């Protein structure tokens, strides 16, 4: 056992680890809730980077199936869930989205671009499907090949090729195909012609290709059907087609931009075919899925649950109001144990749980005691000059023994309708401690202010904090474990057994991780503006929460907009959509408390940024109710990088909360 090795150094499990490592690290925890992904029917799999999307889609790949067998590990899918062959295309690396970078001399001019895009996808996927069959034939043991009834001897493949070539879907391009290898070389030639055209190595797409453009999805369906009818794959084996990087269709640049919606409509058309032999799997980042455009060449739109099933990993993994339905802790626990096992740091599977290493986390009272360790009571509570001396004295005495209760008592006295308390000091139990929800909703804000008043940084530690800061993202979770483990390795000179890591050391690792993830915003496309937006928003929220001495707005670490408003404003819609797509903001439906009852949506910063900005990560009470104009100004500020500005004067949140203060009533620091 090598305890000194950090078992969390490898962050990614998906396309970035080798297949043999994948089989060790793959966690089957999500399989029970994502079963639809492995059964016939189209599926859209939504999730931000790190949600586990690539990990799940990876199971469809033939090389992963082969790796399981070679390592002697049982494939995590069984029975009808394992009866599939996967093929696919990555829209970016294949260059499919590069159509449109060059004008076409075809009869339809640039209107023919989506036809070529679809044709390219068809040929690419059919070729990949044939290669998948060969990989399984050559990579699996004979017993396994027999068990899935795969027959791919050369004479059968030749017969298949000759019959496939006569299918009408090719419009004659494959006429005269003599063998399987001839078929494959024709496929490669056609795709290479396209690539040569895209790279300006030839002047035009060959005429024969121009005259034989295929309809999206048709050749894939016919190939799958023929593979069954000639007996290469059995009747009950389904063909799954992965389409990766769908979100790139939202980010096409410059003159190319116009093709994004058209390309999406071509993909929609494939999903709309509802072919019994072929199902599509679309992996896409959270908010990059929008099925409102019509399918290519029709006025019809895709219908959820009719044309496809949606698996929203973000929604599934992020904490819901009912914690009992939250599946992320189990997933994280399994990943944690697998990492330790792979690093040979546990003798038995499942013997070391998160709580063994991190503990549950300090209680509110323990946290407060830590912040107040060297503070005088006068620092912990602030009294108004006009408060009676008896009340002031009471608060100071309470602060010495129970700082949290004292801070809540101070807030109670500052709230409308409760101010009379200063004239009659209560006996325990105090009303602010007995009003369960009032207290619960304000605890985190109270702690934040106590820490600030005691000149301490609020800290996060323990299993619960780690899970909540992960925000349902397994990559963030592993990253937190990596940095906490790293901090522990730095602090322990003698290491002989599995650690129980102190809260103080955990706090260091969590702080490092938070700053790292804030810096990582820059790594993604368009990250500078989003990072400035986050800094601007977080700094302003921090300032406002800090100044809320009555603890009236503990939910103002989030904001809410009417759905009508933000969807009708393209700039705000696009910016917020991108922020959610890159995992910078989290969005949720918001049940309005306004009389107009209009549907609303609310946004919060990714909780992993909370330690960096010293903001409570818990979502409680009402977020800020904003107008779309307010968010416009924030975006302006993010682009302009002016944080203390005009905005302060011009911005007032309004709708419905008469006492809600403007977010930027006070000057905030330049980020």
């Amino acid at each position, binding site marked *: 056992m090598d305890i000194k090795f950090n078992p969390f150094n490898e962050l990614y499990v998906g396309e970035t680890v080798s297949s043999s490592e994948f089989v060790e690290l793959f966690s089957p925890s999500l399989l029970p809730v994502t079963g639809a992904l492995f059964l016939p029917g189209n599926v859209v799999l939504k999730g931000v980077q790190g949600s586990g999307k690539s990990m799940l889609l990876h199971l469809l790949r033939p090389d992963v199936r082969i790796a399981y067998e070679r390592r002697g590990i049982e494939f995590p899918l069984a029975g009808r869930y394992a009866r599939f062959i996967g093929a696919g295309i990555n829209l970016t690396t294949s260059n499919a989205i590069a159509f449109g970078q060059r004008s076409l001399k075809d009869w339809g001019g640039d209107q023919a671009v989506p036809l070529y895009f679809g044709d390219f996808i068809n040929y690419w996927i059919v070729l990949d499907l044939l290669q998948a069959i060969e990989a399984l034939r050559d990579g699996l043991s004979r017993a396994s090949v027999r068990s899935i009834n795969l027959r791919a001897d050369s004479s059968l493949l030749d017969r298949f090729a000759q019959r496939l070539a006569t299918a009408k879907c090719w419009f004659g391009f494959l006429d005269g195909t003599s063998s399987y290898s001839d078929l494959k070389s024709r496929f490669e030639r056609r795709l290479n012609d396209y690539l040569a055209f895209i790279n300006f190595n030839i002047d035009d797409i060959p005429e024969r290709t121009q005259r034989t453009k295929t309809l999206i999805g048709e050749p894939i369906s016919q190939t799958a059907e023929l593979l069954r009818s000639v007996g290469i794959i059995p009747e009950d084996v389904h063909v799954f087609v992965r389409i990766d990087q769908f979100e790139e269709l939202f980010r096409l640049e410059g*003159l190319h931009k116009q093709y994004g919606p058209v390309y999406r409509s071509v993909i929609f058309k494939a999903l709309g075919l509802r072919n019994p032999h072929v199902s599509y799997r679309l992996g896409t980042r959270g908010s990059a899925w929008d099925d409102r455009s019509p399918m290519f060449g029709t006025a019809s739109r895709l219908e959820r649950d009719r044309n496809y099933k949606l698996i929203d990993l973000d929604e599934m993994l992020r904490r819901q109001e009912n914690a009992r339905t939250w599946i992320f802790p189990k997933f994280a626990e399994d990943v944690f144990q697998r990492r330790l096992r792979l690093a040979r740091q546990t003798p038995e599977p499942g013997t070391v749980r998160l709580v063994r290493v991190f503990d549950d986390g300090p209680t509110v009272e323990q946290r407060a005691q830590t912040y107040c360790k060297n503070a005088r009571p006068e620092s912990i509570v602030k009294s108004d000059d006009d408060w009676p001396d008896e009340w002031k004295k009471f608060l100071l005495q309470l602060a010495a023994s129970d700082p949290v209760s004292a801070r809540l008592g101070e807030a109670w006295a500052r709230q409308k309708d409760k101010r009379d308390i200063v004239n009659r000091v209560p006996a325990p139990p105090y009303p602010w401690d007995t009003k369960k929800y009032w207290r619960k909703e304000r605890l985190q804000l109270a702690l934040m202010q106590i820490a600030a008043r005691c000149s301490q940084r609020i800290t996060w530690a323990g299993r619960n904090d780690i899970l909540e800061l992960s925000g349902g993202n397994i990559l963030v979770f592993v990253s937190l474990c990596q940095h906490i483990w790293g901090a522990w390795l730095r602090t322990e000179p003698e290491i002989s057994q599995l650690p129980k890591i102190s809260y103080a050391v955990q706090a260091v690792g969590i702080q490092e991780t938070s700053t790292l993830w804030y810096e990582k915003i820059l790594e993604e496309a368009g990250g500078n503006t989003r990072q400035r937006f986050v800094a601007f928003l977080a700094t302003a929220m921090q300032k406002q929460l800090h100044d809320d001495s009555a603890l009236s707005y503990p939910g103002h670490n989030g904001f809410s907009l009417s759905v009508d408003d933000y969807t009708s404003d393209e700039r705000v819609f696009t910016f917020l959509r991108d922020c959610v797509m890159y995992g910078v903001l989290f969005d949720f439906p918001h049940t309005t408390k306004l009389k107009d009852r209009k549907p609303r949506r609310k946004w919060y910063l990714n909780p992993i940024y909370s330690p960096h900005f010293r903001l409570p990560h818990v979502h409680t009470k009402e977020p800020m109710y904003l107008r779309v104009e307010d968010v416009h100004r924030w975006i302006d500020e993010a682009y302009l990088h002016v944080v203390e500005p005009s905005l302060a004067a011009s911005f007032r949140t309004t709708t419905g909360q008469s006492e809600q203060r403007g977010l930027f009533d006070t000057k905030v620091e330049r980020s």
Partner: protein
Amino acid sequence: MLGRVCRPSGNLGWILSKIGDLGPWSVLGCLSTEDRSLALWEWLVRNAKKRTHSEFILVKSEPSRFSDKIDQLLAARKLELNQLGRPDGNVNEVPLFSSDEAIVNRVDQFIERAHPNVILDVTSMPKRFFFPFIHRILRSARIQNLLATYTSPQRYHDGVLAEDHKALAPLPLFRTQTVAAPKVDLVIIGVGFMPLGLPDFLEKHKHQVDVRTLFPFPPGPPAFQRNWRFINALRKDYPEAVKDPVRVDARDVSDAFDYIKVLTENGRLRCEFGPFGPKPISLAMCLFARLTASVVRYTQPTVYHPEYTTGVQKGNDGEPAINTYVIRIGGRDLYSV
């Protein structure tokens, strides 16, 4: 030099004096907010070198917080150009995110009108343009002599130089060439100042390929601090790449090209490039990638700081440091594999 082809490079005046009077030169340059963007043109005018069809591109970036400052500096630069005398092909505005076709058309039109002697000034030209420009110019048999020039600045801006990069994508004309392309063996990264999106790029290649870095050496202050920060961004996941960076002279295209030849076993190993480093090293990558049909990927920033650089570095003789590389001479390409 023994056993190797001679690839002349040096200061512009010295190179022109050595290659003799070949006739007038057509210049393709890029007018920008940087002082150095006009250094070559100013030198040619001042030294009464014969010029024929020449043109500048002016790359329009997307609106940003720097837009006002950019407009102001560009106005000054245009005034300066007017005073020097505008090129007969004028200044042509092109959007930064022009389609591949628009970029190719721009350079093809230039080639059509240009004299067989061409100077391509890559000083202020984004890689998105100069890579395909080199590709097309070398494809043309009309162009008999090609010099590439790069003017060193007096200083770089201290803060962030570029922002809001796009997702990693191949540069125009440097995309995958074949569907059955062999697996990539090696990724070569030019070490620069800003590793925009680079860790994610490499993450995708992890476990599959070797990663090697070309480190500009000697970097000299303050560049070395930024170069090492760049290296640090790779340290954790690519200790091998970081442990043994290949030191190359930041201004020596020929040396960088030869190092790439060695690293790729004279092109036998399939390789992808990430040109994040100095322009001359990127130029070497461009020349090599063109010859071997290698993919070049880059995270194109959408915003450049208007004072990315200021001033023009001067040599001991007081002349601007216009580094000049002979790429083709008398119809013969000097860079080959």
